[in-house]
């Protein structure tokens, strides 16, 4: 169905009729090949795989027998490109174009291409279905559930799985007060980082004075390491839209914006297409589903500034100005975009709304802990075996996520820390891995839930260096308006540079803490006031590493270039000469079949020899 031809849905009954007709037209025994076309799988060549399938089906004249579906991200991007065969739900991973003929042939014969199945590293067994893979087994996929199963560019796919029924319910069976009450009772808290109760925010915005109000979807996702908002907007854009329409209706807003990073081209185009399709069906625009409610949404692309994820900076940038935050002594729900009441929520927050309306607050608030309800999507990345997007119920211990879902640490190394909350969050050490995923508990530990990045670090990660990494990030990303943040972060960087190059003094540790106080209490916005968290938590949990850098002038993890030396372990060196050839500084010399030698005076400590050696003969210490 192309967009131009569809009939506007004049009321809820028309939506239900459409849903029935879509479902009836679908044959449940139809062979379908679902190819993940999320950004992760595309990066691993999903576009070539898709093209190969199309060519193969055309070649064999099977285009009618087998449907191809380009789905959104399944979350297990590392194993991409992923392909799922329906109706059997056979799950293939790391599919390459050359595998395509075999998959098509096997599918027709009802057979399975064994070597493309996922192998459980623990048991060595091949696994047939996605849900049985350990990575997925521990997850509870409510918000992210349909992401990998439907074609995000087809609104009919979303409608077929019950899409827009929450909107229909909200428009016809609930008063706006009831909607807000339902969201309040659900206990939903903002997924963008702060964890502010969503229903309360909606209510304040509804009560705020003003005829014109706005709702905004924050898809700026600047947290390095986080990409669930991207995947949601790419894979289930209609769920986000549906949430926004319900919210706008409850608040009394008739205009909405999606502010999305320009680095997310697929999210931009899928969201844009979703808006067009929803407009065509009358699910957006004038008189939505015959209810008399009007609402339109436009997309605004960000310009690449982390600070624009902050609500007031985001709004400044929506107004076409520099993304500078302003003091929020008057809240944005009262005076936001163009000084009008504005309700800003995160992508994932919006995507939770249809679920709550459909299944009810009482169902939703059964999931999670006392003060953190529902599920949270994390991007589990770093030195962990299974990386990807995981959706878990609140309250699950961090350890379960990292070791059960994540399958433990890469290369059998030892766990050191997990970083949550991105640059505003902190490091959590092994001794606190029992902590549950819960807004308040993570904050107590000095970190925070944040938007959902979960970066795992192993024994080879230097915590001082890592703290410096975040400070460097923030130094580039601070807007530069207020003194504590602009100057303070820069000076933290100066002190950390001193420490990581072996010029640190013990007083520097106190200086870092003093700077942290100035940042926390003096900054204008939360970028500055939380900027010290990575430094503070690393000082709190890994102080001995700082002391090793300062007192012993050693980097225990072997990451700080100035404090390490490379040498050749002559017993292990086979004299293969690879390091001699690769060393850019010509610091390694040697003859064939004789141990090489590194001239420390010339060595630039780039680590190339360490990387290229196949015999573990280069020592870094």
């Amino acid at each position, binding site marked *: 169905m192309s967009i131009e031809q569809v009939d506007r849905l004049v009321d809820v009954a028309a939506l239900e009729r459409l849903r029935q007709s879509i479902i009836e037209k679908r044959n449940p025994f139809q062979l379908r090949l679902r190819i993940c076309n999320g950004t992760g799988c595309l990066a691993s060549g999903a576009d070539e795989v898709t093209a190969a399938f199309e060519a193969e089906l055309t070649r064999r004249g099977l285009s009618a027998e087998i449907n191809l579906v380009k789905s959104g991200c399944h979350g297990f991007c590392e194993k991409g490109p992923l392909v799922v065969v329906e109706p059997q739900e056979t799950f293939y991973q790391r599919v390459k174009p050359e595998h395509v003929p075999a998959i098509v042939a096997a599918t027709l014969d009802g057979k399975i291409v064994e070597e493309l199945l996922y192998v459980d590293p623990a048991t060595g067994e091949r696994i047939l279905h996605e849900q049985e893979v350990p990575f997925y087994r521990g997850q509870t996929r409510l918000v992210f559930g349909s992401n990998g199963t439907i074609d995000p560019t087809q609104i009919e796919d979303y409608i077929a799985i019950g899409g827009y029924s929450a909107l229909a319910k909200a428009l016809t069976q609930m008063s706006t007060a009831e909607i807000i009450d339902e969201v309040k009772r659900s206990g939903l808290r903002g997924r963008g980082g702060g964890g502010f109760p969503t229903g309360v925010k909606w209510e304040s915005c509804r009560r705020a004075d003003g005829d014109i109000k706005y709702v905004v979807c924050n898809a700026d996702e600047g947290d390095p390491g986080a990409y669930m908002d991207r995947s949601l907007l790419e894979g289930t854009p209609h769920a986000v839209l549906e949430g926004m329409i319900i919210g706008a209706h409850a608040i009394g807003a008739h205009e909405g914006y999606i502010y999305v990073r320009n680095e997310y081209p697929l999210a931009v185009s899928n969201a844009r297409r979703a808006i067009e399709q929803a407009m065509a069906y009358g699910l957006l625009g004038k008189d939505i589903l015959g209810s008399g409610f009007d609402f339109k949404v436009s997309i605004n692309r960000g310009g690449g500034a982390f600070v624009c994820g902050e609500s007031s900076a985001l709004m400044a940038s929506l107004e076409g100005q520099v993304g500078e935050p302003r003091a929020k*002594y008057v809240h944005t729900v009262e005076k936001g975009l163009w000084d009008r009441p504005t309700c800003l929520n995160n992508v994932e927050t919006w995507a939770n709304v249809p679920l709550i309306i459909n299944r009810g607050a009482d169902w939703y608030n059964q999931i999670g802990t006392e003060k953190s309800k529902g599920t949270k999507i994390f991007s589990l990345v770093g030195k962990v075996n299974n990386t990807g997007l995981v959706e878990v119920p609140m309250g699950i211990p961090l350890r379960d996520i990292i070791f059960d879902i994540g399958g433990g640490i890469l290369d059998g190394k030892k766990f050191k820390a997990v970083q949550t909350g991105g640059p505003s969050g902190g490091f959590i050490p092994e001794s606190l891995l029992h902590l549950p995923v819960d807004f308040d508990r993570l904050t107590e530990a000095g970190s925070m839930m944040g938007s959902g990045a979960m970066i795992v670090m192993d024994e080879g990660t230097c915590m001082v260096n890592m703290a410096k990494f975040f400070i460097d990030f923030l130094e580039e990303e601070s807007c530069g308006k*207020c003194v504590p943040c602009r*100057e*303070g972060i820069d*000076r933290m960087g100066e002190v950390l540079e001193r420490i990581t190059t072996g010029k640190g003094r013990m007083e520097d540790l106190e200086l870092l803490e*003093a700077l942290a*106080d100035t940042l926390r209490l*003096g900054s204008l916005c939360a970028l500055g006031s939380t900027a010290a968290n990575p430094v503070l938590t690393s000082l709190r949990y890994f102080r001995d590493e700082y002391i090793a850098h300062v007192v012993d002038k050693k980097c225990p993890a072997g990451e700080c270039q100035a404090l390490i030396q490379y040498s050749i372990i002559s017993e292990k060196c086979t004299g293969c000469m690879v390091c001699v050839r690769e060393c850019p500084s010509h610091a390694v010399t040697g003859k064939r079949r004789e141990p090489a030698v590194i001239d420390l005076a010339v060595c630039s400590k780039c680590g190339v020899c360490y990387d290229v050696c196949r015999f573990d003969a280069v020592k870094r210490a």
Partner: protein
Amino acid sequence: MKSVTVWVDGNTSVEVIEPKDSRAVHLTVDGKLIRTTPGKSLLEAVWNRPGIGNIPALCYHPIVQSYGACRLCTVEVEEQGRTRFVASCLYPAKEGLVVRTDTDRVRQLRKGVLELLLARCPEVKVIQDLAIEYGIEKPRFALGVQDCILCGLCVRTCRENIGRSAISLVNRGIFREVAAPFYAYELGDGCVGCGDCVYVCPTGALKLGPDGKPVLPKVHIPRPAAEGLLR
């Protein structure tokens, strides 16, 4: 109608009879009740009242809108039993607010900010004086060579009062600077040579050039990509 005793400045108090429909706002600043009009910020409420409150402010000027960049005006406010730090140049005066402008915690915070400012601008007299007042001998950081604290007063007055916007704050973060378009040092037609920017500059970083237009501080070009613009 109700009668209250309010302080006009540090030494003078008067008794006022508030009419029933009075919109006046009363707040306690360092123990003294003062009376102001709604819509003012805390800093504006104590501005020109010698002896009430001790609030240093570098990015505030009555002729432009408050901006909240220097953070020196930070004070403690107590509202509904909660105490927090706010920038007084932006925080709206509210009825019954208790404001403390000179507590140890406030002084500590200002000291931290001043140390950062002094490290950036070691030669600037106002900062040196404030640093002495707050007990800073020498910043614990490498010293910078700037005079500009990026308070944005020049930019704001050019935009708000002169209506020219000949200069603006460019780049972000530590690379932020006051500059004319394309990092030009010589101001073109955009500038009418009114000299307002030089007048409001708190540190003397902007000086008047021979043509009556300001001489802008030298810009640090942040990334190689910008270099071509200077040619």
